[in-house]
């Protein structure tokens, strides 16, 4: 009806959809290669990921072992120094980075699956289903997740990475559900979704084949944010001693640094690396996310 808001005459409407889609894809790639935020962010994340997943192969199996001299500042042999017990902080750090990624993927993944399911179903079905799911979302959203997690996890005598990830996932999904729901609402009224519905396809098939692919960039960004949130929550839980029993994590390193007076003893090498690792990973994820947003959302490319 009205003029194309952007550049008139750029889109040849008679063209088949494939070239247009291809063109959009290559355009995204074009911007992706030139977006410093995306490049820097993903560079840092990838570097840490490689460190976390390959690094342990070059280190001993038990990073908590008392291997060296006690209370050594960083040196050639022990890159990040040693603890008051003579544990190698570099080894702990590498293993900690690995568990950071594991908990992020797992906790963020659980939250992502729940949030996506709730959001899709609520947005697509509407009506009473939407009302109930919405209410559920709001309730979980208002509950202060961390405190609930502390109380729930405190009762467990044996704690593993799995339970921690599960609990984090169960508490972190609401905002993602909200976001996915509102996106789905706007997509569910589109012609092609209507067509699919009329042709009698099953709900979950329509969601997976018609709705989800059209908001894939959005879903990727939601997952990244959930990943970062799960990492921070897990670090907090580890820090107050509710992490996986006998596990190695960056949060647990901070905890033992505080418990064994690293601050008072001036052992900065004990508490600086783990915090820096978390900040770098999560910060890089956030920056990567902004970069992705700019690539996928042409409006933001301007500024």
């Amino acid at each position: 009806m009205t003029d194309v808001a952007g550049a008139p005459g750029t889109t040849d409407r008679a063209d088949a959809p494939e070239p247009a889609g291809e063109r959009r894809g290559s355009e995204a790639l074009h911007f992706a290669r030139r977006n410093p935020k995306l490049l820097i962010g993903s560079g840092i994340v990838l570097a840490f990921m490689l460190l976390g997943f390959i690094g342990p192969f070059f280190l001993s199996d038990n990073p908590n072992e008392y291997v060296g001299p006690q209370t050594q500042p960083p040196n050639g042999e022990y890159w990040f120094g040693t603890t008051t017990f003579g544990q190698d902080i570099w080894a702990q750090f590498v293993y900690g980075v690995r568990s950071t990624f594991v908990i992020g993927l797992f906790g963020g993944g659980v939250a992502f699956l729940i949030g996506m399911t709730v959001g899709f179903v609520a947005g697509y079905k509407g009506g009473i289903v939407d009302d109930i799911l919405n209410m559920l979302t709001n309730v979980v959203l208002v509950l202060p997740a961390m405190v609930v997690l502390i109380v729930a996890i405190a009762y467990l005598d044996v704690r593993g990475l799995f339970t921690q990830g599960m609990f984090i996932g169960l508490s972190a999904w609401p905002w993602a559900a909200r976001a996915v729901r509102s996106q789905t609402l706007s997509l569910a009224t589109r012609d092609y979704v209507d067509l699919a519905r009329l042709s009698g396809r099953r709900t979950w098939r329509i969601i997976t084949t018609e709705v989800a692919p059209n908001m894939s960039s959005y879903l990727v960004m939601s997952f990244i944010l959930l990943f970062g949130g799960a990492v921070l929550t897990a670090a907090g839980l580890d820090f107050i001693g509710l992490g996986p029993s006998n596990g190695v994590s960056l949060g647990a390193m901070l905890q033992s640094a505080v418990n064994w007076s690293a601050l008072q003893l001036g052992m900065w090498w004990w508490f600086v690396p783990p915090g820096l690792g978390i900040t770098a990973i999560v910060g890089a994820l956030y920056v990567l996310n902004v970069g992705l947003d700019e690539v996928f959302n042409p409006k933001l490319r301007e500024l």
Partner: protein
Amino acid sequence: MTLRVNDLKVYYQTLRGDVHALDGVTFDLADGEIMGLAGESGCGKSTLGKSLIRLDSRMRHVGGTIELDDKDVPIADDDAMVPLRYNEISLIPQYAMSALNPTRKIGKMINELLRARGVRPADVTDELHRRLELVGLEPKVLNMFPIELSGGMKQRVVMVISTLLNPSLLIADEVTSALDVSTQRSVAESMVEFRDRGYIKSMIFVTHDISLVYQMADTIMVMYAGHVAEKASASTIINEPKHPYTQMLIGALPEVGSTSTAQGGRLEGIPGTPPGLLNPPTGCRFKDRCPMAFSKCSEQPPLVEIEPGHWAACWKTG
């Protein structure tokens, strides 16, 4: 002569190159003239409307001049345009429904806008009330938030705001497309009334709906792919179009002069699509869809005055 546009070229910058949205547009607009600007989506009509008041960040002025009341309009210089905006050239945007700040009372917003433009609100209060009344609104709307008004009411408020400083030129961009038929009519009538009362000197009415424009406009200009195809008085365009494109456009109307359908101006009757403007074809841009195309059409036809006040760009009419 109010407005004189000469060989105006405005391109959109995109990744793949410049989109030649306006590629040498020339026309005049007389005092008191209401000109309908028609054409398919993407022909450059909205770009022309925008170019006259404010280029957005991707639009680039490539060439050509604009004169308003014998003064140059420096559209490429955003700062130099500021004094002209609102005072000399004003706009009723396509998005009039959402053009008002949702969290300010309308009256307060108007006052702040006026003060920012160096006008004492008290000086124009009476006039504001009179004009609101003219479009059928009570002064109490000034005490309301935009959300409290219906779409048609918001449209009329924007109309009053945009014309409050009696601009020489008003650009109305697709103002009726979001309205129902009866509201369209009353908006169109109010516009004519505003012109008759001298609130605005002249107006460009951008639309895809030729039937509506025929009722209110003095002249109609038809654009095609960034070029002017034909400009003449409204009745000439409707009854004796010369350019093959205009002829097909008019021929596609269900019943000339009727507003019975809002789709009146849509161009489903013409086979094919307009050319992309990224690398526009040489020669006449309509030649691929034109039934009368011949060898000469590989050269670009100039816009010539084939009879007084009737301009067309086609080798067959020249």
